[in-house]
């Protein structure tokens, strides 16, 4: 999903490029043999992409998981085709950034075949886009996916008839059960033949949707005024102009400058003549056509029994039962599995093994074979690449992050997250977010860097900034969380104080920023896909790709941090920084060694957390100190990786503003917490 390189990493030389970087750049691929997968979110585009290419895109039961465009290759027989998976789009007229990315791709690359993937259960809601794509002159193949689920619901579709009515090839598939894929490959391979035959049989193009006479008249007039090629049929361009598509208006103003004023007059004139917006009238007309089509091809036997998935779904959405279910998920998934099992049992086991077996071995090998003390301390000893960086990565971070991603994948695949989104939407509104932000926020508990990238799925720039800030400030990543849970697990009171404090900061800061940042709060609307049993192949694959992404991201930084610390030690910079931090740390009532932990934390959040764990193991901290250190460390630093991602996603200015708020704020609130605990005289 969020990570392109892992998706197509098995295909060397393939270009992957993220949505935000794509502007104005056209990747170097053969245009003629390109297949593009388009469709609304959560219809199985990524599954089909994987099956066609053999790649591993993250597939999930959550609308909008494909954030970036991913590319792969498919070979059938002798021909090799490029395949592009696009983020979900609802309509040809884009609203979100992802939709814009998809449309730009369609216009600029002119794929040889456009596979419109739709959900068989919801043809009436899906065919609208098909009509738009056909209207726009794209070489469409309609892929009716999830026929298995539709059959189970008693829905029957006459595919032959649908094909005849639409005039494009229609293929029925059930991608998760790998049905219909062979036929899909055949249709794609024979597509050029098909279109040629079509072109021969019809001289004048026949319009699938005929609009009101007034609109049709204006379409004709506008068509005559357009002289340039926009990668769409003139009819489609005219319709988009009438619908008020800003991007197309700008494009036409640029390319058909001479006629643009006249076109604009026509659009404005037509808009003024009717009561309802043109976009609405055009959309409704198309939908009427779709409904008529569906009446002709779909037969349904109503089912009266509520399925188990549906029953569970209802339970998760009612606050009375939903909140206890959420707490159970958090307790067993996060606390028992990630906290106690991952960060406790597994870490203990691996740490002991590493420290008793691997480290002494490395130390003795390095001291006996490497004569230079400087290089010795680079590789081994206290801060060595092999003894510290690898140990943190393998023995502390790997088990925690692994268990988290496993739980997350199970939850994601079941379809629980959208239900959680609707449950918390009201609460999230207080902090300036919408229920949609549940995904990045939950993912943040795994890795804030990854989550920052996923904030892209949020609708307004305002919401994205708030989410980025809250992720950087108040969402501990899984390594931090795991270590903190392990460190505080023996002290329920300390744990409660830490949870309460972070929650308070989250709500307070969110509440204030929501009022400070201008702009309207975004509305909430979300599709709720059916609840289903998580498929273990899916879960394992997702866990694997996320872990892979994480390690590609993390390990170099661990090593870099080790090298930087070594360099800092050698030159005295490190000691200087610690000397600067020490009074700050003492101000918080913490022992001087924590300064080092805080400094580590900047290199990576989890690095700092691991340092805290070391300190705790040596028994040098009291209950109060543990709470203050945990709280400050949670709030403090977005790590280098997250900070880099913040710059990439939000720009330097916003990232710098967020960071310069967080640094003093973390220490100040740590201090306040410390004073408060002292003042109240609680022993933790």
């Amino acid at each position, binding site marked *: 999903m969020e990570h392109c390189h892992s998706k197509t990493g098995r295909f060397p030389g393939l270009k992957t490029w993220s949505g935000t970087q794509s502007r104005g750049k056209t990747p170097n691929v053969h245009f003629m043999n390109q297949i593009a997968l388009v469709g*609304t979110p959560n219809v199985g585009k990524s599954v089909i992409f994987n099956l066609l290419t053999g790649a591993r895109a993250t597939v999930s039961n959550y609308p909008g998981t494909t954030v970036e465009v991913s590319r792969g290759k498919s070979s059938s027989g002798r021909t090799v085709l490029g395949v592009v998976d696009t983020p979900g789009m*609802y*309509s040809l*007229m884009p*609203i979100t950034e992802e939709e814009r990315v998809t449309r730009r791709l369609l216009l600029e690359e002119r794929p040889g075949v456009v596979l419109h993937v739709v*959900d068989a*259960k*919801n043809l*009436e*809601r*899906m065919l*609208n886009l098909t009509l738009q794509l056909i209207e726009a002159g794209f070489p469409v193949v309609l892929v009716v996916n999830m026929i298995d689920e*539709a059959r189970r*619901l008693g*829905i029957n579709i006459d595919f032959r008839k649908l094909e005849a009515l639409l005039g494009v090839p229609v293929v029925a598939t059930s991608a998760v059960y790998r049905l219909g894929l062979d036929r899909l490959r055949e249709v794609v391979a024979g597509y050029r033949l098909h279109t040629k035959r079509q072109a021969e049989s019809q001289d004048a193009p026949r319009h699938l949707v005929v609009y009101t006479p007034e609109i049709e008249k204006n379409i004709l007039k506008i068509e005559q005024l357009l002289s340039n090629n926009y990668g769409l049929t003139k009819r489609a361009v005219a319709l988009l102009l009438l619908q*008020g598509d800003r991007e197309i208006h700008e494009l036409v103003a640029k390319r058909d400058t001479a006629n643009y004023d006249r076109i604009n007059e026509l659009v404005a004139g037509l808009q003024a003549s009717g009561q*309802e*917006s043109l*976009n*609405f009238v055009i*959309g*409704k007309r198309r*939908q*009427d056509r*779709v*409904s008529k089509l569906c009446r002709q091809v779909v037969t349904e036997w109503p089912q*009266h029994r*509520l399925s188990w998935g549906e029953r569970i*779904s*209802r339970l998760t*959405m*009612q*606050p009375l039962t939903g909140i206890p279910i959420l707490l159970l998920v958090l307790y067993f998934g996060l606390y028992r599995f990630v906290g106690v099992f991952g960060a406790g049992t597994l870490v203990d086991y691996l740490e002991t093994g590493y420290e008793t077996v691997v480290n002494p071995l490395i130390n003795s090998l390095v001291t006996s074979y490497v004569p230079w003390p400087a290089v010795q301390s680079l590789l081994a000893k206290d801060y060595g690449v092999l003894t510290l960086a690898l140990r943190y990565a393998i023995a502390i971070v790997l088990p925690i992050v692994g268990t988290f991603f496993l739980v997350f994948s199970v939850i994601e695949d079941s379809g629980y997250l*959208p239900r959680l*989104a*609707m*449950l*918390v*939407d*009201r609460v999230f*509104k207080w902090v300036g977010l*919408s*229920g949609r932000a549940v995904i990045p926020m939950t993912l943040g508990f795994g890795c804030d860097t990854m989550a920052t990238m996923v904030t892209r799925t949020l609708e307004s720039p305002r919401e994205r900034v708030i989410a980025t800030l809250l992720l950087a400030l108040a969402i501990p990543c899984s390594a931090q969380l795991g270590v903190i849970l392990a460190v505080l697990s023996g002290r329920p009171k300390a744990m409660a104080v830490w949870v309460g404090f972070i929650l308070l900061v989250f709500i307070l800061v969110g509440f204030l920023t929501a009022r400070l940042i201008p702009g309207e709060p975004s*509305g*909430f*609307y*979300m*599709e*709720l896909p059916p609840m289903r049993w998580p498929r273990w192949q899916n879960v394992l694959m997702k866990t694997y790709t996320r872990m892979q992404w994480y390690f590609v991201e993390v390990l170099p930084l661990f090593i870099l941090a080790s090298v930087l610390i070594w360099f800092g030690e050698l030159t005295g910079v490190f000691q200087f920084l610690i000397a600067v931090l020490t009074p700050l740390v003492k101000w918080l009532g913490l022992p001087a060694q924590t300064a080092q932990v805080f400094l580590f934390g900047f290199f990576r959040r989890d690095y700092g957390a691991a340092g805290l764990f070391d300190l705790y193991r040596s028994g040098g901290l009291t209950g109060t100190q543990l709470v203050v250190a945990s709280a400050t460390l949670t709030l403090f630093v977005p790590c280098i990786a997250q900070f880099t991602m913040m710059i990439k996603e939000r720009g330097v200015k916003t990232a710098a503003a967020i960071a310069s708020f967080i640094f003093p704020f973390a220490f100040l609130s740590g201090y306040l917490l410390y004073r408060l605990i002292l003042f109240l005289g609680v022993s933790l």
Partner: protein
Amino acid sequence: MPVNVVTLTKMEVGQHGRIFSLTHSNPDKVRKLLALGLYPGLPIRLLQKFPSYVIQVGHTQLAVDTETAQSIEVAKEPGAGAACSRHRYRHGWWRRWLNHRDSFSSE
């Protein structure tokens, strides 16, 4: 506006209807709903009102917030459909009891 047209917020849980129109001062919001596939004429059923509105359109369920729900106008479908579905969605013994009482009072 016809008599049986109400905003989604004024519907009862379990009621059926057809989307009548989408009204919102901000045309962008209307566009979003259209893009989601909420077109006038589609059959719709209200499943839940709190904490968010949950509607069933065809075989898909959508969750929307109050503000969005206010901009969806629905032509209610009276009669058997609504009553029947209400029965289905009021599950649990207390719901059954309520339904039972309802049916008495209407007679």
